[in-house]
């Protein structure tokens, strides 16, 4: 920038010098024209010549002033100008004098004055000084020009360097960008590899999970079967024992006092041994407990089997109008709801693509529970509502029944677990089954409940059944 400013200054100075040159030329020209005008007038008396003189006269002082200010910084030129000024004044006064003489009719005197050394010499001196000023000015101009040229060369040089720098910078940035690009491409390749690896990992994990899940299913199935086999024996031989008991104590049902084998009918309490009636009672009690336990175990095994079997079932996606589905469910529960005087209200429900059997089992279980666990002090009311949530639908089954204590709200979804008063028949597998089914359909289930006020079970399901493998069912 400094370089540029300097070049600018040089250029202005150069222009100044050129202007001074022309002003000096003009000044000399003016003086010469005035002299010619004066001489022409003196010789011919023609007023036209006088006009030239008169026109030019006022232009001299401003030109002189201009030159003076232009050369103010150059002492030698100033000296010359100072020498020139009196010469010009003398010349001007000579010119004015001759014209004045001529006009007063003293033509001869005027011409004489012209011919004197004063007239001739003054003009010669003027010319000489003007020449000197011009030469000096030209020299000055030349040096200025040279300066300007040098300046320009500097400028050019610096420009070239700047351009070179720019080119280098550009090259450097291109290189940097290329390097960054290469790094990025490399990173992308690494990322792609990582992605492929990730997908492979996910696929492998999914396969492992599916295999593990299938194994669990198979395990549940085998265990339940293998457990059943000894149960058949226990039950079978317990029943055989029961028959033996009948033969031992006489097969006469409630008549316990009648004994078999003709034994002493009197109770043998004196020596501490039990009476036959007591024996039979204890026998019956023990057998009863054994049989009740076996029956319960059989039910539990059946429950596991059912869930395991459900997990193995292939899901079939179809369009299902939930309004229709719920109408069917409430119709089949109509007897139950009428008996318990429960009102069932169905809101507007969505249509989804899913497995019909699973949905029927899920919602009939929920409706069934709502109809089952009522409060004594209030008439039952079950409300079913549906809503869309993006790609999912949410279906709520709300009741005003007895509710579930907060600590039991997770437990009720566990297999064989039940909450609250155990005054209704059940295995404790309904909600476990429901949750397994909901998960298999790619959804989730939750419960909100206040004890003594009611429960709301919310089932969130995908609007369309996703590509399904074997869902976790237990």
């Amino acid at each position, binding site marked *: 920038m400094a370089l540029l400013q300097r070049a600018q200054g040089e250029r202005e100075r150069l222009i100044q010098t050129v202007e001074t040159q022309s002003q000096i030329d003009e000044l000399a020209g003016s003086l010469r024209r005035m002299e010619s005008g004066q001489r022409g007038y003196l010789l011919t008396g023609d007023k036209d010549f006088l006009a030239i003189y008169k026109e030019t006269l006022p232009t001299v002082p401003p030109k002189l002033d201009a030159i003076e200010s232009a050369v103010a910084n150059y002492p030698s030129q100033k000296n010359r100008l100072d020498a020139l000024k009196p010469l010009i004044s003398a010349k001007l006064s000579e010119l004015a004098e001759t014209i004045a003489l001529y006009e007063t009719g003293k033509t001869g005197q005027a011409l004489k004055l012209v011919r004197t050394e004063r007239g001739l010499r003054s003009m010669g001196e003027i010319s000489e000084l003007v020449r000197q000023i011009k030469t000096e000015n030209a020299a000055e101009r030349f040096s200025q020009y040279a300066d300007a040229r040098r300046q320009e060369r500097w400028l050019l040089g610096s420009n070239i360097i700047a351009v070179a720098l720019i080119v280098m910078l550009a090259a450097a940035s291109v290189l940097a960008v290329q390097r960054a690009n290469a790094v990025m491409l490399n990173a992308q390749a690494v990322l792609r590899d990582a992605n492929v690896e990730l997908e492979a990992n996910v696929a492998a994990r999914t396969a492992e999970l599916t295999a593990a899940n299938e194994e669990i299913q198979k395990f549940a*199935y085998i265990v339940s*079967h*293998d457990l*059943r*086999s*000894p*149960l*058949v*024996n226990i*039950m*079978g*031989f*317990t*029943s*055989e024992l029961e028959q033996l008991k009948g033969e031992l104590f006489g097969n006469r049902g409630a008549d316990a006092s009648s004994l078999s084998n003709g034994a002493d009918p009197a109770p043998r309490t004196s020596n501490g041994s039990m009476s036959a009636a007591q024996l039979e009672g204890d026998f019956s009690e023990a057998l009863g407990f054994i049989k009740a336990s*076996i*029956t319960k175990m*059989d039910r539990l095994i059946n429950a596991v089997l059912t869930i395991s*079997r459900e997990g193995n079932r292939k899901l079939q996606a179809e369009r299902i109008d939930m309004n229709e589905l719920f109408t069917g469910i409430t119709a089949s529960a109509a007897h139950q709801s009428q008996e318990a005087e429960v009102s069932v209200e169905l809101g507007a429900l969505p249509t989804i693509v899913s497995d019909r059997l699973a949905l029927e089992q899920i919602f009939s279980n929920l409706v069934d529970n709502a109809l089952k666990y009522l409060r004594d002090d209030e008439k039952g009311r079950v409300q079913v509502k549906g809503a869309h949530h993006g790609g999912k639908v949410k279906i709520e089954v709300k009741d005003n029944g007895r509710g579930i204590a907060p600590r039991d709200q997770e437990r009720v979804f566990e297999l064989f677990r039940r909450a609250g008063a155990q005054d209704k028949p059940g295995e404790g597998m309904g909600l476990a089954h429901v949750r397994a089914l909901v998960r298999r359909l790619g959804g989730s289930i939750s419960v909100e409940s206040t004890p003594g006020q009611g429960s709301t079970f919310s089932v969130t399901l995908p609007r369309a059944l996703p590509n399904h493998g074997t869902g976790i069912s237990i």
Partner: protein
Amino acid sequence: MNNAVTIVMIEDDEGHARLIEKNIIRSGVSNPIVHFATGGAALDYLEKTSKPGPLLILLDLNLPDMTGLDILKRLKAHEDLKRTPVIVLTTTDDKREIERCYELGCSVYITKPVEYEHFAHAIRQLGLLFLVIKVPETS
């Protein structure tokens, strides 16, 4: 049922075998019952014993050495035994298993109920079936 008809029972569970035997006898069937606890021993007996006479086979599916289905296949592929009635009596009540047994040519499929009354009833009914069943003579 012809007195010459032998009932071959393939059942690994001694208790089940005993309960089945008891109830068959109670139903009035007096035919000899030959019991095998493994599939190998049973097949050995069936395939090697020359001309065992008319047979009726009671088969459990869950055996330690081979599955009942394998035995069923072997029996149905055997020239002399393929016409012998096979009654599958097992704890498995899986639908596919039942279908598979009938496809392979079992005559009757019965599930052993845990409830003993049902179990005893089923076996006695089976005994009654034995009394009227017509078993092909082995040539």
